[in-house]
């Protein structure tokens, strides 16, 4: 019964558009290749920032680089989408804003998967999983 690969496969509800990769954002969208989520961090003042930029808005230092985060986060806001925006959508799905443990306000809009949509609540602890599509690893979150 058990397969060689026992890791559950998580997917978004719909195969929607993917991000267009460029110099600035590539590290973020491919970060999940090794199972790790990364954000830009300032080497001078330690500020985490998102979306990626060319400079730290806190100290104006340019010593910024991707750095791994724990992947642990808390649900800050949640909405269950019921509207069929595109053909083929049948099930409700959960969109959430999660706050990464590393810094207040370090947010991602994402999907919470692996749970009944109506069961996701604000304050819930979640951790990152990745959906691999083409050249992109989308960070989704599951309950801890």
């Amino acid at each position, binding site marked *: 019964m058990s397969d060689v690969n026992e890791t559950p496969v998580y997917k978004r509800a719909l195969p929607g558009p*993917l991000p267009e990769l460029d110099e600035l954002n590539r590290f973020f969208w491919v970060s999940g290749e090794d199972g790790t989520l990364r954000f830009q961090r300032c080497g001078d003042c330690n500020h985490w920032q998102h979306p990626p930029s060319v400079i730290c808005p806190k100290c104006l230092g340019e010593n910024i680089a991707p750095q791994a985060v724990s992947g642990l986060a808390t649900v800050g806001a949640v909405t269950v989408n019921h509207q069929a*925006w595109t053909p083929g959508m049948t099930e409700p799905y959960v969109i959430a804003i999660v706050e990464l443990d590393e810094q207040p306000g370090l947010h991602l809009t*994402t999907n919470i998967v692996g749970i009944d949509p109506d069961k996701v609540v604000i304050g819930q602890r979640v951790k990152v999983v990745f959906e691999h599509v083409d050249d992109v690893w989308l960070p989704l979150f599951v309950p801890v």
Partner: protein
Amino acid sequence: MTTKYLEKNAIIAGVGQSQVGRRLDRSGLQLTVDATKAALADAGLTTADIDGVASWPGNMEAMQPGFSPVSVTDIKEAMGLELNWYSAGSESTQMSAIINACMAVATGQARHVLCFRTMCEASAIAKGSRSSLVGAGRNRIGGSFQWQIPFNAFSATNWVGLAASRYMQEFGMTREQLAQITLTARRNAQLNPKAIFTDPLSLDDYLQARMISTPLCLFDCDIPVDASTAIIISHADTAPDLKSIPVRFEAITGPLKGRDSWDQQIDLTRFNGEPAGTNLWQRTDLTPADVDVAQLYDGFSFLTVLWLEALGFCGRGEAGAFIEGGQRISRDGELPLNTHGGQLSAGRTHGFGFFHEAVLQLRGEAGERQLSQQPKVAAVANGGGNIAGAALLVRD
């Protein structure tokens, strides 16, 4: 003294609006001409008097069909205008055309500025293109929307739903309270012959409506329409030459503070309306208690809730209690709200409809829906999330 704020030298000389409908057999440019002719007639001006044109966001037809189909230069060419100044651009607040026009007349760049906002979203949807859906049908998405669209957060309903969920959890606002924004708008729409939805709507109807993106149901979302609204902004010195009762700008502002995104605010229930409110009251000696009628953006009902707090009509987190039962925001209440039916019932004229209505109410020309107590000060708010503009209009 607050006379250093130069928008006080700007007046609204005329307002005009095309038909507002779900599928009008008129192009965006035709609708804009209709609205412009109506505004000129209202002001007692001719095309020869107009020496400025401003709009927002400018022509977006290639990116988002129906969202903004008419260029500033389209109306200039169509009506043979000779311009000393013109401006339109998307990288600004929804109210930027009005703000820019105030600055243009105050600094002498123009005397009479035609401002317009035209939408053909209903026709675009009928043709299979939903302009308010960003990125749908595309394979890849760049720019700021890459942070929402890959997670199928296609619609502003999702983004506003997120903020609303957090707000309701934090401050205990109920759906029954939120419903009062929609129910009040619908009652007001019944007195507006141009409104789209005028059937009676009960609290039960609201609570039983289908969810779009929790906690927002169908009736929390405004209605895409075809419409154009024109506002002529002139220097106050021209008032004696006008046919209309002038309505003056007491204050106007369109700041951008905090993060320029829907999801990166440290506090997910705060938005750019707050600095707009702070700026607005710094530019005037008036206070929220002086406002007789409020025309507050309701692209989603929840945005109006945030605006009530942002402009200081109630305290932070208190809007649910403020609107409960709907009395305070009713036509006979202490703060009559969205007296034409708002965008929720009168259609998404995308901010300009609130100016149009504020002017009619201040002049006493709102017909059957004219407030019985003649208002002298109106507050107008446009936008939500990172985009926010606010204005105070007065009848001197």
